[in-house]
Each structure stands twice: as C-alpha cells, then as structure tokens.
C-alpha cells in the first residue's frame, strides 16, 4: 500500500534574474513499512525534496499524497497540523528548542496537538532512546549524539506513520552516528513505520530497503541485490 506518492514534482528557485531548476518532473512511490534512502551530490536538491515531502515547502507544480491526503488541498494551518500529527522529522542540526528541556522538547508536539497524556508519552519516548536520566537537561547540556536521540524521540512521540530524516548522522562522529542510526532503524522497524532518509553514507543507504539517487532533478532507483543475497556472495 502506498503511503507517499509524489507525481510530476517541479521546483525551481529564482536567484536574481536566473532561475535554478532543482526538481524536474520528479516521481516517487513509497509503500507502508519501507525504508528509503536518498543520496545525491551536495546541492542536488535532497533537502528541498524533503521539505516538499513534509509540507514545509510547496512545489511549483505536482502532487504530493501522504496516505490519502493531497497536501496541495491543505492550507498553511491545516498543513501544519497535519504534519504535527502524521509526519516526524529529524534534522542534521537536531534543531531542539534551546530553552526547553529534553522532556519538554519531546512533549512539545503532543502538547500542541492537545494530548492530555503528553508527559507520560514523552517520558516513554525518552526511555526508548535511553535518555530518561537526562530528561530535565537543556539541549546545551547534552552531547550531539544525545541531542539527536532527543530529536528522534520527539519525532516518534506522536507515533506518526511516516518519518523523514535529513542527513541525521551528518553532524555526529562515525561511532556515535552509527549508534544513533541503529536506534533510529530499530525503532522504525519495531513500529512498522515508513522512513525516508537522506544520507551521504553508503553503509547507511545499504541498510535501507530501497535506494534512490537524486540527480538532474530526478530520482533514479539503484537496483541492488537484496541484503540476503548480498550476504551469500
């Protein structure tokens, strides 16, 4: 069953007098429970694509359907609320709210959605990422890896069906990065969620069920032997 479908997506930025075409007639179909990797050169438009998928930004033309919802049919406020409930996002720079504690950061989307059990759920999420001991610390008191785990907990806490991650290990050292990514993948698999992850790491991409490369404004799927076969070679 398709959970995300992008059709005929065009996006360009005007820089002064010239326009820069980033996405050209892009198509993508992601099914429930898939883990999709997107790679591509820096500047290829990966982040732009992610912004469009999440409804943070709108395409110049084309359709985005998340579940059964056409994002183009939503206004700004509806879109924001929809995103809050259905889409989790993890950033390279973590982007925690600096004046809120770890717990409060995780509670934030629940509170905004008016969830009465916000605190309880947030504590559970923190527990899942192994940070229950740091719940009253502010982001400035946490390491990069811990911050990213808080950000992951925050993305999971509303139990969205669909998660987007933009180079989530990009700001972390290799060891921490792979720990945090393991955590992310395990949670996604455990919950049967769908994940679209932008990454530079070949290793990480290989762990995903499908890999795409963004180039010339289009996504090209790399056909690779499935993990099981690869192991036998």
């Amino acid at each position: 069953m398709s959970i995300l479908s992008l059709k005929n997506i065009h996006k360009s930025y005007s820089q002064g007098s010239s326009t820069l075409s980033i996405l050209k007639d892009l198509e993508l179909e992601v099914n429930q429970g898939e883990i999709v990797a997107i790679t591509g050169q820096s500047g290829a438009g990966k982040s732009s694509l992610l912004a469009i998928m999440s409804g943070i930004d709108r395409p110049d033309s084309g359709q985005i359907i998340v579940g059964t919802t056409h994002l183009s049919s939503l206004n700004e406020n509806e879109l924001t609320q929809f995103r809050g409930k259905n889409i989790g996002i993890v950033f390279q720079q973590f982007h925690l709210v600096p004046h809120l504690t770890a717990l409060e950061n995780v509670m934030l989307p629940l509170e905004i959605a008016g969830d009465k059990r916000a605190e309880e759920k947030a504590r559970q999420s923190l527990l899942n990422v192994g940070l229950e001991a740091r719940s009253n610390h502010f982001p400035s008191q946490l390491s990069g890896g811990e911050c990213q785990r808080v950000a992951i907990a925050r993305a999971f806490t509303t139990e969205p069906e669909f998660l987007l991650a933009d180079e989530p290990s990009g700001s972390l050292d290799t060891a921490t990065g792979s720990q945090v990514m393991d955590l992310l993948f395990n949670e996604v698999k455990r919950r049967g969620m769908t994940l679209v992850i932008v990454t530079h790491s070949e290793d990480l991409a290989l762990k995903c069920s499908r890999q795409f490369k963004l180039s010339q404004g289009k996504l090209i799927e790399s056909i690779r032997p499935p993990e099981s076969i690869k192991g036998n070679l």
Partner: protein
Amino acid sequence: MNFFLRSLRELRGQKSFVLLFCINITFGLVGLGLISTWRQAFEDTIAQRSKTMLGADIQISTRRTWDPKEIAIIEKETAALGSPIARSATLYTMASSASKSRLIELRATEASLPFYGQITIKGDPSHVKRLKDQDHSIWIYPEIATTLGLNVGSILKLGESNFTVTGITEDDPAGSWAGSSVAPRAYIDIKDLQGTELVRKGSTVWSSYLVKTATEIETKVIINNLSALLNDPGVNIVDHRESGEQSARLFKYLTDYLSLVSITALIMTGVAASWLYRHYFRRRRKTTAIYICLGATRYEAFGVGVIQVLFLGILSSLAAATISLSLSGVLVKLVHEFVPWALTPAFSFGVVAKLVFISVSTCLVVCLPWLLETKDISPSLLLNESVAQGSQKSKYRFLSLGIQVLFFAGLAILEAKSYLSGMVFSGTLILATLIILLSSRLVHKVLKGFAAGLSAPLKHGLLRSVRCVEESTPAIVSLGLATILTVLLPTLRDILRTELNVSSDRGVPSMFVFDIQDEQKAPLEALLTELKAHVQMISPMIRGRLLTQNGSSVVREEMNPKDSRDAERSKLMRNRGYNLSYRTSLDPSEKITSGTFKGTPFSPEQHELPEISVEKNFADRTKIEMNDILNFEIEGVEIQGKVTSLRSVKWASFQPNFFILFQPGVLDDAPKTWVASIGATSPDLKVEIQNKIVQNFPNVSAIDVERVLSRLMELMEKSSIALGALALLCVISGFLVLISITRQMLHEREKDLLLYKVVGADRSFLVKLLLSEISIIAAVSSFTGLFLGLAIAQSLSVIVFQSKTIVSPGTVVWIPFLFTFFAVVLSYSSIRRITSRPTSFGLLS
C-alpha cells in the same frame, strides 16, 4: 582610510541594527538636548542682558539696615575708582486705593537708576517721564492698576503717604519673578520712602547699593575690596551676571530635575542599545574570525568595532541635536514661567558638541563589554560549532557594569550640578533596577508553578519568558523604570495638593501678617479678635547676625559660578542673615530630632548658656552641630547660646517657622517685629481683615497665603507638565526599547518558532504563545514599577514633606494595565509578520 571604510562597509549590511540602535540613542538624547538648548538660551540671555536686568554692574545688598561705617566703606571704595553709586530699597507692603488694598513689591530707587536700560511706560515710548519729575509719583505694574482700579492720575496710598500714579509699566528690563502675580511691582523715588513710614525697626527691607563701573576689571576690583572689608554673611555682593543667575534659581532647579529625568531616558535606551549591540556582535563574530584568519590583528578587529560605535554615536547625536533644536522653540513654553524674561533657544555649536560627546561616550560605554570581547575573538570558532555559538554573557560584564554605573552617575552629578542629587538619583535608580529584576525573577518562579495547568500556547509563552530572561531583561527594566516615573509624578502632585490644603484649623493659614511692630501687637490682636479672625500663631521675629560659631568668626562665602547646587544652596543659606525667634512650646509642625527642647524661660541664675534650637536641614547645610556655641549680634548687643536641640520643620505647614529658636526670656527685650498666621476665613472676611489692617496699621503687610499657594500650585502644575513631558519621553523610550527588543528577539528566534511549526504548531498557537510571553514581560515590569513608584512617592512624602498622608494608588493603578495593553498592541504587528512567514527556512541542511 581603507580600514575606516571597511568598518563602515560592515554596517551597511546591518541596516536594521543601525536604524534601531540609532533610534534608541537618539531618543535617549532628545531630553538632554532640549535642556541643553534651554540652558544655553538662558546663559545667552544673561550674557546679553544681565546689565540691563540689574540696571547696574554691581549690587551690594542686605536685609538689615546699613551700618554708617559700612556706608562709608562702600562710598569710599567706589569713589576711589570714580564709579557712580545709587541706593535702592525693596520691600513688600500694602497699597490701597480708595476702597481696595493689596500686597505689592515696592522698589524705591534713586533718580540715577537704572544705570543701564529703561523702564518703558505705556504711552511714553521716548522715555521722557521721570519719577523724580513730580513729588510722590509712582509707577505701577498693570496688575496693580487693574486690581485696585487705578489709572494714570489716580491716588495710591502707601503707609502714611499718598502717591500719584504717573505711569503704568509696559516693559521692565528687571523682569518679574515667578511670584509677581502675588505681589506686582511698583517704583517710587527713594526720597519719598521716608514719608511713608513703612520702614520701621525690624521691618523686612532689602537695601541695596548699585554701582556702575567702566570696565569688568573695575567690577572685580570693587567686589574683591568690598568683600574683604564688609565681612558679614548678611551682606550680599554680586555682579550683574551673578544677580541674573540668582533671579532665575527656580529655572535652574527645574532644569536640574528635568535633566535627571532625561538621563533616565538615556539609560533606558542605552540598555536597549547595549542589547542590540550584543546581538550584532554575535552575528559579527564569524566575520571577525574570518578577518583574523586572513591576517587582520585582534586590535584591528577591536578598532573596527570602536569606529563603528563612534559612527553610530555621532549619527545619533546629530539626529538628536536636530530634533531637540527644532522642538526646543516650541517646548520652551514648558519652562518659560520660571525665567523672569523671555528665552529664545537658538542653534549653538556648544550644545551640539556636548550632545556628540555624551552620545559617543554613552555608545562606547554601553557597547563596552562586547567591544572588549572583540579583541578576544579567535579563529578557532570557525572550526568548532560550540565555540562559534559563543557565550551569552561577556566576561567583561562586571568591569563594564562598573564603568557604566560610574559613567551615568557622573553624568547625573554633572547635569544636576549637585553631588547629592546625582548620588541620590543614581542610588535610587540602581536600587529600583535591582528590585525590578529581583521581583521579576520572583514572579517568574511563582508563575512557573502554574505552568502545568495552562493551555499549551500559554504554557510555552510562560516558559519562554521565564527561561529567556537574558533576552527580556532590558525590556523589563526599561518598562519598569518608565512605569515608576509615570506613577511618581501624579502621586507626588496628589501628595502636594493634600499638603497645601487650606482647610482645617491647624491646616495651612489663609493669611500671613508681618512687620507688626511691638507696640502694634496688642491692638492688632484686639482688632483680629473683634473681626472673629482665628489667629493660629503669632511669633516674634528678631533680626540677628551670626558673629561666631564655637569662637571662630563666621565670614561671608563668595558665590562662585562653578559652585555645585549643594554649595550654592548652603552658601545662600549661610549668607542670608538670620531671623531669630523664641517660643514656649513647639508648633505641631515642628519635631525635635535630637536633644531636648524645654521652652522654660531662661534665668541668669541657671549658670548655663541660653538654649538654642536649630532647624535640622539648616544645621546640616550650615554645618551647625549639637552643643555648638553660637554668638549672635542683635542691634549691637551680643548674645550667646548653646545648641541643645535640632528640629525638623514641616515647611509645607506655612506657619511662621524659624531656623533658629532661642530659649524664651533671652530676646524678650530685643527690638523685634511680630508675624501672625490667620486660619481659614471666608473670602469676604479676608478682604475685610486686610482693609482694616491697612487702615489701622499702614506699615503692616498681609500676604494672602491662599493666593500664594494657588500661584505655587500653578507653578507646580507647570513644572509637573514639564517633568511630565520628559517623563513621556521616558515612556516612549520604554516602548521603543520594548519594540526594538521584540523585533530583534523575534528575528533571532525565528528558527525556534519554525521548530514549533515543524512539530505542528499552527499560526494561532504561535501568536498566542508570543502574545502571552510579551504580556507577561510587560505586566511583570509595569506592576513592579507601580509598586516601586508608590513606595518612592511614599518615602519622599515622609522624608521631604514630613507628611503623614498615605499615598493612594487610585489615580495611577490603571497605568500598568495600559502599559501591558500597549506592549501587546505594539508588538502585535511584528508577531503577525513573523508568524505568517512560510515554514521553508533554513532548517534543512
């Protein structure tokens, strides 16, 4: 040059910072600019007109009668240089027409006066009229003509003589003082004064010798010689400049206080400017690090910062100078009542230079912590994300705070021209700031407890305001100070209104009768009883001269134009000559603060010196202490006494109070006059009392205290309008600070707000969040300001007015509500703008 251009080029990309920074400093300076232009106009007028105002070069005056020896000295010293002299006498007296009477200020002058300038008489533009041309001729101010129904040719009675009105004045270069509507002036020739019998023993008369000199050097020589020879604090010797300065003391005091209010505005906007600069600095760190990486030295980086701040300072001061120059002409109405002549503010290079100096140093001082930090920037921040963030606090903040406090306290002392006022002002300001900060933290703590129960946007608004105190501190302080000022003014006015109320028995008297001769006391009292007038108090008044204090002789202290207001006031007090009195019991308006007051009659057998009670402030200013031995001369007789008590006197009671009270039984036989205060009367009775007194005791004068008070209230209203205008400036500055900071804060925090959006917060959530944050900041600071303002008013009321009145918050309690409302309304547009931005904004890498 290259370096200079690079510094300014960097500012080019920061237009919104430059604009906000300059607007703040400019606004902070406008008040000082206005006052400086007024003061300059005042000094210019004195420089141009002081000679015609005095009508002479030198004035030598006293409130007692001249000693023949003194007259001989004055005549000899001036004759030695061939300088002409002339006598003049000024006194307050009753003038009456056939049916009416009123108090006037009578000036009796010799025919040669004024040496400079002319009094213009209506219908006589060529100045042909002379007082001496006709015997018993009088020139009167128009107010006398209208109130007594007089015309040229009418008869006016002064004491025992009748005068013919030969002129109604049109312009008097001597100017009229702020109280002239209570006692308008009239001129007669001094040869006619004797016949009026107004000048009797102990009467209150200012007798002067006026001198005309050929050169300024002669003026100095004569003043120096006479000062040395007439060594008595009771003799006042001034040149025309000094005389002009003294005639406008009210203006000087008013501008002193106005300047303190203006400095508050400057401090408030300075705090905001400092805050804005901090953010600018943080944005600049990376650029600076890159420069350093590319070979610029740390001191070059520091130099760039200094040049930028200097540029901002100059820009702001020029703007402030333009605004204050263009406003000062219109706003001069606020202070014109306090100057006896017209002020015309004009462009002055000195004022602009002063503003540039104040502005540049203010900018340097408020930016100091970050400027100093500039030279510590290391290129390593380019490699490390957490270093690049930098600390929110400068490590030079304590050093800088010290310098900032010293700078503004110094400015306050210089502008108020008084160490005392400057220090009290700075102290109060520091204390108020601390209390505002402490109480805002306290309120935050309390509010935090409620956070859990609030709806999500309110809760997050609260959390932001509580946890981002660093950000909101300047707004809290500015708005708090603005509220204090706004609360203080009407509250103090209310206190004064209550204090100066002529109502009850023991209230302020409605009439004051003075110059009552000893032998007139009994018949006057009988007359008053017959008229059913309520005499509140009748006190003897003996004119004396302090010869020695603890054996060392008391000499006159020369006034110096460079004197601080404190020195000026204590010299004036010392030099004014002493009025002594005695009484058996204290008046309710008096309170002993140290020692004891017996009031029992002195007997020579008591083997101790007679007791003296001294008013406390007077003692402080003239440095008289408990147990001092004071030696007075009264009409050639020396009388010694010992200070056995200090009293505080509630002067606002308007009772006949005296700085020095002797033990009864010592001065009973000294030549004296009596002063009486009469309680509340109906207007009709008052006129009757006044007329009867004039008929029966022509030399006795009656002051309509109610009229004085209403004039006083009028002046106070005027000064409170002036103060209010500048306080308004502070309030505007306060809001300016709030708006600048909200704008900047929203800008800085745009990323945070986007995060809220990313996790699902819609626009109305963010609007609610920001509005609640701003209203919490505004409410906390303005309510704290309200309480502090009331507390300061109450302390002033107790300390200055010895009042028992409890301040009522009724008239001011709406202020914090209004301010909070304003804060919300004013920041609403920024909030709308920021929350309606699309979400796509550099969150993704």
